[in-house]
């Protein structure tokens, strides 16, 4: 058993917030104010180990301490208690293009950033073509960065970072940047990292990504390690917890990566796979129908079109109650099926629907072959409406059997 790639013992980080800069000075004086600061515990006594070759996803609400943990492991900020050990070359991506200078060309910035990451000029030169190719910047590489779009800056930043060939990769929420096709390239590169037995530690708000990419997940809450286990187990627990403590801004954690972020820029000139139409239909007549009763058969018909680069696709379909609760989500990937066609009509039959009264948004996602990258999301034209004629209440129809055993009270 090799040593773990990351060992963290009783790690704590306490920030001291001073009312004003003076008290930071006067505090040291014998007659100065006693504790003129407020303590904020960003991390409390966190201990864990990440075995080599494991991919760990870090989840938790905003301000839970995820970023602090990543920053400590990166080595930019220091813990106030405890210790950590990292084995292997570490590359850290807290922000893409952090060392970029706007007035210099992409090329100059590649060398600058490579030097920051510890590459020598020679190593950087050797990797230059690879970086340029991966970034897809072409002749733009000679232009100052200020002329770049934000997507291009991200592309360049990611390209340099992955070129350093690290053994341990620490990433803070970067799958959500850049345009569609580049996001996908990033995800693929990260998968490559994973498959080549490298250790990854990354933070994401997308439970879906964590479940798809990671072996294990870590849930941090209020600076404490709440759970560290198999990624499916942790994401389930976290989703349950979040649903109970719903906040308006992130009603559904499954969707959180989409909420509040601008839609990715479409790439000009490159046609990506898309959902042409999606609708709820009556499985028998195949006519549009969106009102059903519990126990009815419901079907979703989706017309998908492959992109310029024809590839294998997966389709995922869910049902979201209007309050944001994800009631069900299925995918062709879960069920070992795949769409391998130029164009296709996919029908999902849900016999004997168990949902009870309510209105449900039916999101449909078109995913890549690995089920990671989402090409397109398009909810059905109409929401699903279930009307229960019977008296059951709640979310779903439960099969049930009652038995009533009469107790004999006469012998008492």
């Amino acid at each position: 058993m090799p040593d773990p790639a990351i060992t963290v013992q009783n790690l704590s980080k306490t920030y001291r917030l001073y009312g004003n800069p003076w008290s930071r000075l006067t505090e040291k004086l014998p007659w100065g104010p006693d504790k003129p600061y407020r303590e904020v515990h960003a991390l409390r006594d966190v201990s864990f180990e990440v075995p080599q070759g494991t991919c760990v996803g870090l989840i938790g609400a905003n301000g839970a301490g995820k970023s602090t943990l990543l920053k400590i492991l990166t080595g930019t900020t220091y813990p106030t208690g405890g210790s950590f050990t990292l084995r292997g070359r570490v590359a850290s991506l807290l922000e893409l293009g952090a060392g970029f200078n706007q007035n210099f060309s992409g090329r100059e910035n590649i060398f600058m950033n490579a030097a920051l990451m510890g590459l020598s000029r020679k190593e950087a030169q050797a990797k230059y073509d690879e970086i340029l190719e991966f970034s897809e910047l072409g002749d733009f590489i000679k232009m100052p960065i200020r002329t770049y779009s934000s997507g291009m800056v991200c592309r360049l930043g990611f390209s340099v970072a992955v070129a350093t060939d690290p053994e341990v990769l620490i990433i803070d929420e970067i799958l959500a940047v850049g345009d569609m096709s580049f996001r996908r390239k990033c995800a693929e590169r990260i998968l490559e990292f994973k498959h080549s037995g490298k250790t990854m530690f990354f933070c994401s708000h997308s439970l879906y990504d964590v479940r798809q990419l990671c072996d294990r997940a870590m849930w941090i809450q209020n600076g404490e390690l709440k759970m560290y286990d198999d990624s499916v187990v942790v994401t389930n627990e976290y989703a349950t917890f979040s649903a109970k403590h719903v906040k308006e801004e992130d009603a559904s954690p499954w969707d959180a990566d989409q909420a509040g972020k601008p839609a990715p820029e479409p790439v000009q000139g490159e046609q990506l796979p898309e959902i042409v139409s999606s609708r709820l239909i009556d499985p028998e007549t195949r006519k549009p129908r969106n009102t059903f009763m519990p126990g009815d058969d419901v079907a979703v018909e989706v017309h998908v079109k492959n992109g310029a680069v024809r590839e294998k696709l997966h389709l995922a379909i869910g049902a979201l109650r209007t309050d944001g609760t994800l009631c069900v989500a299925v995918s062709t990937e879960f069920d070992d099926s795949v769409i391998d066609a130029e164009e296709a009509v996919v029908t999902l039959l849900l016999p004997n629907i168990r949902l009870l009264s309510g209105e449900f948004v039916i999101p449909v996602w078109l995913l890549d072959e690995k089920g990671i990258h989402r090409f397109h999301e398009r909810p059905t034209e109409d929401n699903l409406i279930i009307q229960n004629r019977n008296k059951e209440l709640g979310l779903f129809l439960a099969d049930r059997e009652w038995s009533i055993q009469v107790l004999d009270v006469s012998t008492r």
Partner: protein
Amino acid sequence: MTTIQHYSAENARTSLLHHAVRVGDYPAMLVRRHSLLWNFFRRDLLGRFKGSALGIFWVLIQPVFMFCVYFAIFGILFAPRDDPAGGPNPAFAMYLFAGILSFGAINESTSTALGSILGSANLVKKVKFPCEMLPLVPVLVSMVVYIVGCGVLLIAGLAFGEVRIGLDFLWWPVLIVVQLVFATGVGLLLAGANVFLRDIGHLYRIFATAWFFLTPNFWRLDMVESTFSGVGAGWVANALLFNPALPMVLAQRQVFGIGHTWSDELYAGAFPFSLPVNIALSFAWAAFALVLGYGFFKSRRHKFADLV
């Protein structure tokens, strides 16, 4: 071989002394990360002139123009009358220009180094790299500007016959390194302190102005004696000597042989110490500044990312 990084908050050394005695790690780090230093240096130097029409030529234009101004004003208009020749006094203009080149390099580099950590907040927060390298970068750039300025001094001085290149000139590279080390040490100290108390930046600007006039830039040391005759003259003169920039600006002039046209008496008054003594004094100040600056910077470094 796998690289292992370990950090323990309990065992972390945060005493100034601990880091001060390990000042040797600083040049070692610079050699190890020379590629990064070169990139920073290049970016800073080119960045200053990027987008301007004349570009890097400003490095040359600036000292030429500065020399013309000093020569016109202090060599002709307000030339000191007590000098034997009287009238235009190119010797004094040279004396002035040489000293200000040296003091200007120290002043400019430390003032810029002061903001180097706060100015790179994003880098310090997001990227792991030896950030003690940052204050050195503007110092290096200022030294380049200084060296070009000295080229102007050399040409103009030889033309006017006020500069003499002798054996003393061999001390020049030593002086450059000593000034560089001194400015880096002060820069480290200021840059680190400025993270904690941003008033340092404003304070230093005022201090630098006072420092400029308290250093024999515009005056010669012999003028002190004649101004403060009587009680306390010795005390004032001695207090003025306690100034790290003083041996540097004097050595700068001695290296270029400024004052060789003066009378022996005047020369002895203006340059009470020989060049090696000035270099030695400068070196002592530089070593002290670097050890203190580096020790302070490194001992507080663990707090930077949270405060910038």
